[in-house]
């Protein structure tokens, strides 16, 4: 098996699993366990691809290319760069955790549900490995369809409105991106991301930015976010905020920054300002949010602002920090959403006012939530600290003002995370917390602990990612990617 097939397998294997689940009339338990098995094997495939990846080489690896339709020069072209391999890893791990959580929590119509989750896995992996503009768009859209159904069918009471707003926002961005792709691809005579050169058109650049800024989301395009994150089931919210938002950040890096050096320097200031606004605004909203999911949702908005700051610093520190922070935040927010799901199962509410005192007699919940929270608020020595520090140091070189805003936001992060922890774990025992509410069950621990464990490993060894995302100078690699 040539190594390129591994990349294709990473896309097709979960899709095959989805089709299998839809075709075979399995019993609900068998469906859930099969889906989990597929998700875990997918993680194994990713580990294999890391093992085969040569981190000392800067170029595209494990790549595969076949012509799709030749008259417009569109091809099926997939492969890995250093930074994309970490995001694929994040995808496989978070999706496996999400599927595991759903398996434990139980979902109605399991064949449809797990099939869609696996399909989503394939689509997101596709986004991260696609090296052809049209293929990228195909996976980008393919990601939306399962999400739409997952939120719309298995979501909460307000799911119909939430999906509508979500789809309208994302599609408005995506279609602008499609216009950009058509113009860029046809004007260059190829849709290939590796062989095509850079472009100086502001409009094409802005079309791409529109799609990514909506999906991330970037302030002020985040109106879909609170409802989508609140109304979807916890594991879907975990995927949305943990992984799907990273697809947008990846798009900024792989396409907007790498292909449009001119427009990037031109629009850098407004984008950085918006990112900084989102960072502060999201942090403030997270501090004011009345429910657990609201805190995590708005903190996600803030974190995406921070990651965008790092990306558009376009220097070594900023880019390395952004990639690390993408992985960090993906793991943290997935953990928090899954824990929020566990809390909601026990208390039937996410209202912070009705919660409290859950630490007493529930040591596992307290420990896991506290650990994830402490990493999220970027305590020195944590992985998030490494990421945020690198981002702030990077953006400091662009303008010290951004770094100051970022530093303020880190303080705010400490405030909203500590507020969340104390409102859930400490204080008086909330009125919605039943006396007999159980501690985290072994199955829940089995889902959440690996995520936290990876975060702890990254805390001890952030260089695992920062030194293996870009070979040599990051800015050069972005330039080389652009070549």
């Amino acid at each position, binding site marked *: 098996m040539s190594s390129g097939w591994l990349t294709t397998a990473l896309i097709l294997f979960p899709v095959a699993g989805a089709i299998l689940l839809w075709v075979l009339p399995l019993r609900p338990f068998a469906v859930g366990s099969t889906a989990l098995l597929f998700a875990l094997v997918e993680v194994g495939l990713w580990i294999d691809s890391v093992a085969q990846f040569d981190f000392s080489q800067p170029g595209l690896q494990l790549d595969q290319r076949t*012509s*799709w*339709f*030749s*008259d*417009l020069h569109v091809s099926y072209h997939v492969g890995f760069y250093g930074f994309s391999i970490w995001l694929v890893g994040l995808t496989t791990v978070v999706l496996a955790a999400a599927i595991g959580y759903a398996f434990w929590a139980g979902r109605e*119509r399991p064949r449809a549900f797990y099939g869609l989750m696996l399909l989503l896995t394939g689509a997101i992996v596709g986004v991260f490995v696609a090296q052809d503009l*049209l293929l990228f*768009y*195909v*996976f980008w*859209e*393919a990601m*939306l*369809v399962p999400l*739409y*159904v997952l939120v*719309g*069918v298995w979501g909460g009471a307000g*799911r*119909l409105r939430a*999906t*509508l707003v979500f*789809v*309208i926002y994302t*599609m*408005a961005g995506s*279609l*602008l991106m*499609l*216009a950009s792709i*058509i*113009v860029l691809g*046809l004007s260059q005579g190829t849709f290939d991301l590796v062989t095509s050169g850079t472009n100086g058109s502001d409009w094409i650049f802005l079309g791409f930015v529109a799609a990514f800024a909506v999906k991330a989301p970037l302030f002020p395009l985040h109106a879909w976010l609170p409802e989508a994150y609140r109304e979807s089931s916890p594991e879907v919210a975990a995927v949305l905020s943990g992984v799907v938002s990273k697809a947008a950040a990846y798009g900024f890096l792989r396409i907007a920054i790498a292909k449009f050096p001119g427009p990037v320097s031109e629009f850098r200031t407004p984008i950085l300002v918006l990112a900084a606004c989102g960072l502060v605004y999201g942090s403030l909203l997270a501090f004011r949010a009345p429910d657990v999911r609201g805190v995590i949702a708005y903190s996600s908005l803030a974190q995406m602002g921070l990651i965008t700051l790092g990306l558009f610093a376009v220097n070594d520190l900023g880019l390395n920090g952004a990639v690390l922070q993408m992985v960090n935040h993906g793991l943290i927010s997935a953990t928090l959403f899954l824990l929020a799901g566990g809390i909601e199962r026990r208390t039937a509410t996410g209202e912070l006012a009705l919660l409290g005192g859950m630490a007493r007699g529930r040591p596992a919940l307290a420990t896991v939530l506290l650990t994830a929270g402490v990493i999220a608020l970027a305590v020195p020595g944590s992985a998030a600290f490494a990421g945020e520090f690198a981002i702030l140091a990077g953006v400091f070189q662009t303008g010290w003002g951004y770094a100051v805003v970022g530093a303020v936001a880190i303080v705010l992060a400490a405030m909203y995370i500590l507020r969340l922890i104390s409102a859930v774990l400490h204080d008086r025992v909330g009125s919605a917390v039943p006396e007999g509410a159980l501690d985290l069950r072994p199955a829940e621990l089995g889902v959440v602990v690996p995520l936290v464990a990876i975060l702890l490993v990254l805390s001890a060894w952030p260089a695992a990612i920062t030194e293996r995302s870009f070979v040599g100078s990051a800015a050069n690699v972005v330039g080389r990617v652009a070549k």
Partner: protein
Amino acid sequence: MILALDTPPIDWFALAPTLALLTAGALNLILAVLWPRSWKRPTTAVVCALGFAGAIVAAALLFSHSADGHGVIADVIQRDRLGALTAIIIAGAGLLAIGTSYSEPMADDHIAEYYALLAWAGAGMVFLASASTLLTLFLGLEWFSISLYILCAIDRDLAGSLEAGLKYLIIGGFGSAMLLFGSALVYGATGRLEFGEIANVVQAQNLSGDALLVAGLALLIGGLGFKASAAPFHMWTPDVYEGAPTPVTAFMSAATKTVALVVTLRILVTAFPQEARLWTVTIAVIACASLAVGNLAALVQKGLKRMLAYSSISHAGFMLIAVASDNALGGRALLYYLIPYSAMSVGAFAVVAARERELNRPVTLDNLAGFGWERPLLGISMMTFMLGFAGFPLTGGFVGKFYVFAAAYEHGWIWLVIVGLAATAVSLYYYLGVIRAMYMRPAEELQLAPVGGSPPRELVLQSTVTAALVVTVGSFFAVQPLIHVAKEAAASLPF
């Protein structure tokens, strides 16, 4: 023989797809009289299907043996790959329409005539697809239109069927009159009927911009616009689509549109290349109007057939963008687009037909609730068709739209790309609305008791829908071969 007529040599092979369908229709009329009543339904359906299948085989052979397009039978018919490919698409839509018709609760006494008319409508369309003079153009158009007028009104038990037929007849007659008048004006200006000769005369006598010619061209576009149901010639579409028996609607929405758009492309490119500056803009404006009218009106529809009718208007708009581009890429885009579009269109109406039979009443967004879970195959197919109409990837609808926009870009009309994308954005609301209705709203909400018992197992209908699904999804993966075929077909036109 008192009068000796000089008959031109006849290329029977070029006529073979038409003849296959004519034969099937004639056989069915004989069966209508001679065959026992209880056998009529299966037998006539099979004969009709054989006719369409024969037409596909003949057209495929014709395609491979007509690399160089040329006129046959005194140049009234163009034997080329464009006509052959169009015939294949039409006959494919016809086959799917038969599958949709099979378990339609229609009275037995006219079933043979129904299939006969379906075959003849197909024959007329196949004939029209290779027409190369104004005379054969009108002949083919009336041929299939008259068959369709009757088909729309054939189900006398169906409320609205007769009204639909009458409405289509009157408005269709108006459209035909426009076409005929336009042909007369063009003939008056140039003195020729053959498409190619019209262009030559305009070139030789420097007639470009001649008032008669331009007026004739405008009327021709209008007349064809009626058949393609492009705005502002679309008014009949929602009423007729809603009133006609659903299988007939399915066939019309796919096949009529296919032939009308292909003929529009053929006549504009071969007969009026000198007026390209005029008609590209006109067609682009019509495309924009269709996109606007179709999409905005579809937003507020409750009845599914009406919604799909407006959606078909908007798709006429998308495909007219390809025609307006006036380049080889546009021709390719149109022919490719028609393949998944026809499959999705017949498939969607087939699903509507299934639900109609289940509930015994017109299908609305409200009474679709829970359908996706009750009938998994039909549900997932309908979802795919809707996603395909909306241009989502993993369906041919995406690639079709991509090609259409690429053609408009190549023509230098980025504004048209933007209009098309805006229309796509609007269309998402109602296409996803169908998915929402099928999957996200519990059936209990409605308190709508199905007629009772488990849903009927309509094997023929289900395989029809599956076939449409395979084409819809398959055309996404098999872009290369399909585009190659479309390219060969578009090469028949003098771009």
